[in-house]
């Protein structure tokens, strides 16, 4: 019923919460939300809330990248955040979310993995990025993206003792430096109309979804979701809007204290 209603509204160029088609809900970002994490952030988009925490561990570099560290991204779609989410190991939606965020950081080279190397071929930093949905009112992807960038931006490294074990009591001077900050904007198609930042009601009526990560006007990552497709004109329009929104959203990203 909700779905039919949202589709009929779209025909009249109206959204269920009265927003314009290219209008985000209110976005806010907070840092330092969990003191035992090396970096942490909470992002709210309307009623959607996501928290992200960064933990670092010591690992062994991959043989094909002996002078690089790496990242591990996990997403927990908490059953508290949406009555439709079930307890248990991450399902397809959680894994897709984690992979979108992973590629947004890894493939865009937002972090220089070489700076995570401790001793070539032997020891490196593994950066764990864990995403938790607290309240899902739609568009977890963009909230997770913004929270991830903020949690990483200036995340601290602990000191190492003489055997290269982590000393959890003290931080050193080393911090995560973001080389670039690709901002993800997610669009949906309802009844042939393109909307940005779909809320939970709108998500139930989407035919297709596209997430685009851009930085300084260039495109760094994309993910098409759901059952239908987009035309070239639609995709071009979405890239233009994403680039415009990137300018606004990046001003919200803070540095870890």
């Amino acid at each position, binding site marked *: 019923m909700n779905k039919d209603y949202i589709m009929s509204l779209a025909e009249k160029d109206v959204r269920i919460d009265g927003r314009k088609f290219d209008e985000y809900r209110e976005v806010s970002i907070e840092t330092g939300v*969990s003191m*035992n994490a090396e970096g942490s952030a909470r992002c709210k988009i309307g009623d959607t809330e996501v928290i992200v925490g*960064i*933990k670092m561990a010591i690992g062994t570099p991959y043989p094909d990248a002996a002078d690089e560290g790496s990242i591990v991204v996990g997403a927990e779609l*908490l059953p*508290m955040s*949406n*009555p439709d989410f079930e307890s248990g190991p991450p399902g397809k939606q959680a894994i897709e979310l984690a992979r979108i965020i992973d590629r947004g950081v890894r493939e865009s080279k937002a972090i220089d993995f070489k700076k995570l190397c401790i001793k070539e071929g032997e020891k490196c930093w593994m950066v764990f990025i864990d995403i938790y949905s607290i*309240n899902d009112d739609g568009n977890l992807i963009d909230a997770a993206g913004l929270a991830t960038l903020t949690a990483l931006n200036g995340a601290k490294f602990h000191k190492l003792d003489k055997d290269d074990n982590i000393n959890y009591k003290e931080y050193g001077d080393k911090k995560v430096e973001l080389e670039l900050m690709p901002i993800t904007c997610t669009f949906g198609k309802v009844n042939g109309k393109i909307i940005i930042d779909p809320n939970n009601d709108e998500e139930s009526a989407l035919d297709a979804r596209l997430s685009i990560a851009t930085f300084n006007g260039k495109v760094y990552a994309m993910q098409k979701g759901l059952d239908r497709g987009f035309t070239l004109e639609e995709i071009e329009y979405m890239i233009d809007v994403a680039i415009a929104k990137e300018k606004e959203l990046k001003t919200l990203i803070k540095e870890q204290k």
Partner: protein
Amino acid sequence: MIDKRPDGRKFEEMRKIEGKVGIVKRADGSAMFKIGDTVAIAAVHGPRVLHPRFLQDPQKGVLRCNYDMATFSVSDRKKPGPSRRSTEISLVTEKSLLPVLDLSMYPSSVIDVFIEITQANAGTRCAGIVAASMALAHAGIPMKDLVSAISVGKVGGRVVVDLDKEEEDLESFGGPTDIPIAYTPKNGEFTLLQLDGNITKEEFIEALKLGRESCKQIQKEQERALKEVYKEKGK
């Protein structure tokens, strides 16, 4: 015996507490409880139909609690997903809340309580119970009382209330004794009681008496936080 606690608190003094209700909009009831640096959030979904069906009870509803710690809530990253520890805590949380609930109105249904620890500095199961109790009340589930909870015990040879992480790790004077309790002030019953350590009967009784007083204070904060939501709604 120690003459001062590591963070300077009095022996019977708990850390600063704060409750907030209505923090997860998509849940039927929700709350946050903070004690010192420990932060627990809880959300209630239900009563709703229980699947699979063989778990249903045609006489009354089922309470299902799920306690989980965020990977980054502790110094050494915790692996995501359930563990033997979290499963046991989920169970004792259920048992601590059940005595105040009358579930006969909800046959074949389940009330799901999800607890997430987002920041940990000891006392997480008690903080979870306090938050869960507020979330159940916020969800409109009939309750005979609000369950409040705190850990008491012995540190450095002294009976204390609300051990923090540093105290839990203090090995001097016979090592720490940790006694998480939940208490229902109206009928004066303890609904959670666990103990790890070594303590005399007299010290144990003294600890419970101190814990009882702290629980009464915690209940006041629970009531204040619950009333706050309806005050905001009234505007």
